[in-house]
């Protein structure tokens, strides 16, 4: 590797990481505005036009707040916990393919931090490390509410990791690869003549299981049992203040963006426009870089759609009870995931490799 490759690598990492972090302020604003819309009140409207600068004001306030460490906590784990929940959230974005490639300085540059051939397993593996942050945070706080919240959270996250993993198996079967880039490349064109050639039409049941499990994995309502502000004060982050508290939320929103990105890539054709082939689009646009920009915009629109869906569902559905949550995972989603694998295998066998 030359110096150029290192510079390229670093600039790609910084650009994509900064881009993904922008999801956090945007989501905070959208979430508060949509909540206000649904509850028939104005929402943030004081800071800047339409309250658009509210996230900035929030961030500044978090930064300038006192950051006390309560006396009877386990200081080391207490400080480590927010760190451990944000770090995996930053790391998982490495494997998401945002667009195909751009040509800069006479080189082909893939718009993806790294194209691992096991990127799907990488995302699942690193993503599940986030549970340590929550578990440590709850245990180290030395607070009964935090402890109960973190226990619930840990059992919830491990229970929903299974359906997530099983849903992914179906996609791997259809595309025969773990590389997300390869998957997107295979989703070009049309399916049966009139549908876009997207994963959701091959794996509808798998997508449903993945969608539900992804809500629970990111601790969103209707599955936000770790927090349940009505019964546990605030769950595992009761004792946290200032930026440490904000870190947990940054991690949550970034995980949300990753999940939305993963769904886009696996089930909704990634950077592809529906029906249109890339080679055709390239002919119309006439330049690879222009095509790359169109692809990035397509990807962002699809991800934004899923993020909006998360927000809508959060403010529409009530919360589950804890035993209902466990029943849903072990009694419904895991069997559904297994059935999905069985059905895909049988159908693929009789159609000779294509579902």
């Amino acid at each position, binding site marked *: *590797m030359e110096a150029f490759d*290192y510079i390229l*690598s670093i600039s790609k*990492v*910084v650009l994509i*990481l900064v881009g993904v972090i922008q999801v956090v302020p945007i989501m905070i604003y959208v979430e508060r505005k949509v909540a206000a819309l649904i509850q028939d009140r104005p929402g943030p409207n004081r800071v800047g036009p339409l309250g658009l600068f509210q996230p900035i004001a929030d961030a500044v306030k978090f*930064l300038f*707040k*006192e*950051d*006390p460490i*309560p*006396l*009877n906590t386990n200081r080391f784990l207490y*400080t480590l916990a*927010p*760190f451990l929940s*944000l*770090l995996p959230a*930053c*790391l998982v974005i*490495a494997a998401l393919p945002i667009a195909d490639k751009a040509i800069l300085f006479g080189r082909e540059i893939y718009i993806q*931090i*790294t194209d691992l051939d096991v990127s799907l397993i990488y995302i699942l593996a690193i993503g599940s490390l986030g549970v340590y942050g929550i578990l440590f945070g709850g245990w180290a706080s030395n*607070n*009964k*509410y935090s*402890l109960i919240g973190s226990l619930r959270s*840990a*059992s919830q996250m*491990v*229970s929903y*990791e299974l359906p997530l*993993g*099983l849903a992914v*198996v*179906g996609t*791997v*079967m259809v*595309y*025969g690869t773990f590389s997300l880039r390869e998957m997107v490349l295979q989703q070009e064109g049309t399916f049966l003549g009139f549908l876009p050639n997207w994963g959701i039409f091959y794996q509808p049941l798998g997508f449903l299981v993945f969608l539900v499990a992804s809500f629970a994995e990111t601790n969103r309502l209707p599955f936000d049992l770790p927090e349940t502000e009505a019964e546990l*004060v605030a769950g595992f982050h*009761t*004792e946290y203040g*200032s*930026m*440490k508290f904000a870190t947990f939320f940054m991690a949550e929103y970034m995980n949300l963006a990753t999940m939305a990105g993963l769904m886009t890539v696996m089930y909704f054709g990634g950077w592809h426009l529906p029906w249109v082939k890339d080679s055709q689009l390239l002919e119309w646009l006439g330049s690879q870089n222009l095509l790359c920009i169109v692809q990035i915009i397509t990807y962002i629109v699809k991800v934004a759609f899923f993020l909006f869906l998360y927000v809508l569902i959060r403010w529409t559905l009530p919360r589950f009870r804890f*035993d209902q949550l466990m*029943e849903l995972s*072990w*009694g419904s989603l*895991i*069997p559904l995931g*297994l059935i999905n*694998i*069985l059905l895909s*295998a*049988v159908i*693929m066998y009789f159609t000779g*490799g294509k579902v």
Partner: protein
Amino acid sequence: MENLIALAVLFAVALLLCGAILAITQILGPKNPVPERLGTYECGVKPEGNPRIPFKSSFYLIAVLFLLFDVEAAFFLPWALVYRDSISAGPELLWALLVYLGLMAVGLFYILRKKILKLN
């Protein structure tokens, strides 16, 4: 190799970012530790007893079950990778799946019948 270098770069940048975010409030924020602020917050009531309360053993069982099922689910992944290309060679991998799924379904059926997940 290049992939791993990109990952290492990302790891370094992410580490720096997380460290910076958490360090910056320590520097910017005021410091006025009063006893009330440093105590445990349990809705303003004075905390009673040991906060490390005993909890239901079901949580432990769920962790053990997760370990078992996650290992089982992990075995699907290499199988899924080669399945599509093996179809033309005959139904061996389909039979293998049916046997394996059957065993897994029996295990799942057993824990659902035992009502281990009924937490109350």
